[in-house]
């Protein structure tokens, strides 16, 4: 279906690869601050500092003036982060108070702040490098905090260049509108299934082989796109939705690892999962819609791109797929050896 002019997307893809951030390994590695109110104004604190290149991320929470630390700070190294626990006492409680994360502006990651109030109400907020402080709302309208997961879902897909490239590859193969609907639906259903399965802990996939497999799924589409250029056909070109479904299962595990890194709290998992998934679908549909609208625009305006430009998006899918496959297999081998 997408034949004419896909030059812009390739440009986006290339620009994004040139970005200074280590994009290919795009798993979200946010910090996590959990506060559980165990008595009036007394909070159990759990503080997770992710590892950056093996070292602990130099960030620290700053509590309001009316709070003071009581008891020891205990710190332990878990798999991919340092966990600290302590207890604080806040004379005026934490409702409508501001908690800042010091040092966050030096990193490109978020910190999830989750507060469980004494009455069981939970609010979840996101501190970002550009806005390293969050203001708690108090117990009354705490549920609104869950919307943070919707935002995180959108963020995950929009910054997940590998997922977007896979979707782009599918769009380049799809020939007609009905197949497009089937393919996008199949991808959505498949990754929703594995996202839920992994989040509820039914099945787990180790991250290194998963990343390699996701990269492979993108590489797989490269030759198929070339076949469409040559007017050849294949199982993938005839039934792209089958491929979308099978590989969608893989990508769902990828989304799940992103969500797991956010530190999902027990008790609000189903709703947070749903919102995160909806966020991912919003971002994905926006991308699909943009590609289709642009393709339609180029057709209406009768823009004839040079062949090299027209084929750039296809090359981008294949080349980046190959690059990531090599890179992630190397990481996998290093982990094994």
């Amino acid at each position, binding site marked *: 279906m997408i034949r004419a002019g896909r030059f812009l997307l390739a440009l986006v893809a290339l620009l994004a690869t*040139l970005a200074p951030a280590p994009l290919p390994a795009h798993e979200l590695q946010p910090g996590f601050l959990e506060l559980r109110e165990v008595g009036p104004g007394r909070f159990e604190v759990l503080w997770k500092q992710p590892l950056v290149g093996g070292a602990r991320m130099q960030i620290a929470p700053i509590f309001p003036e009316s709070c003071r630390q009581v008891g020891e700070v205990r710190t332990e190294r878990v798999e991919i982060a340092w966990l600290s626990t302590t207890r604080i006492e806040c004379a005026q409680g934490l409702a409508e108070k501001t908690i800042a994360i010091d040092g966050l502006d030096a990193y490109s990651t978020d910190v999830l702040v989750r507060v469980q109030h004494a009455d069981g109400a939970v609010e979840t907020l996101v501190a970002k490098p550009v806005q390293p402080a969050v203001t708690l709302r108090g117990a009354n309208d705490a549920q609104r905090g869950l919307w943070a997961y919707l935002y995180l879902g959108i963020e995950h897909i929009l910054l997940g260049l590998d997922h977007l490239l896979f979707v782009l590859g599918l769009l380049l193969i799809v020939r007609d509108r009905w197949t497009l609907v089937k393919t996008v639906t199949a991808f959505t259903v498949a990754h929703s299934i594995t996202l839920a399965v992994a989040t509820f802990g039914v099945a787990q996939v180790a991250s290194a082989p998963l990343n390699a497999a996701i990269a492979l799924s993108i590489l797989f589409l490269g030759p198929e796109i070339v076949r469409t250029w040559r007017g050849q056909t294949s199982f993938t070109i005839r039934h792209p939705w089958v491929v979308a479904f099978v590989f969608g299962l893989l990508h769902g595990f990828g989304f799940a690892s992103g969500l797991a890194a956010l530190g999902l709290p027990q008790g609000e998992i189903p709703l947070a999962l749903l919102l995160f998934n909806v966020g991912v679908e919003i971002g994905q549909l926006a991308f699909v819609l943009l590609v289709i609208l642009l393709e339609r625009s180029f057709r209406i305006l009768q823009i004839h791109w040079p062949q090299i430009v027209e084929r750039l998006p296809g090359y981008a899918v294949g080349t980046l797929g190959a690059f990531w496959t090599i890179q992630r297999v190397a990481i996998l081998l290093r982990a094994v050896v």
Partner: protein
Amino acid sequence: MLGALNSAPAHAHLVQTGFGAFYDGLAHVALTPADLLVVIALALLAGQRGTQAARWALFAFPAAWLAGGALGAWIPAEATLPLLTTLTFGIAGALVATDVKLRATVVGVFAIVAGLLHGYVNGATMAPGGAGALALAGAVTAVFCLLAIVSSQVTTLRAAWTRIAVRVAGSWIAAAGVLMLGWLARA
């Protein structure tokens, strides 16, 4: 420790989506009224004048925007040149409203001038906020996509009332520009 927080740049003009510089630049165009209006007005104008004019505008405008933005980031100025940016979208709107039979090349030249100007202001205002090439790329991408989608849709309009609707939209943009000129004169 707290100094880091205090010295955070005043994000006067760079929009923070939290999705990274590329999307910040994209959002900056969408949330800066003068930029958004000039893109829409030019898209209406180019679409109204047919596919050839739309093709001209589609390549001239983002390219000029990119050049202007690079210039603005290189030689940042304090000025946001509100008078000039208001004039460009106001004139574009008025051209749409009056349905003047401009030639495609004239539309192209107008696109270059407007693109250079708005791109320059765009680059100059984003650069102090810490935005780099990626933010500019985001802004140009937004401009290109919006221009392509809107102008191509306008070229397909055939029914008389839809052509009128385009002219009415142009008239609204021009009217907002005229009122804005009044505000600028008063300020």
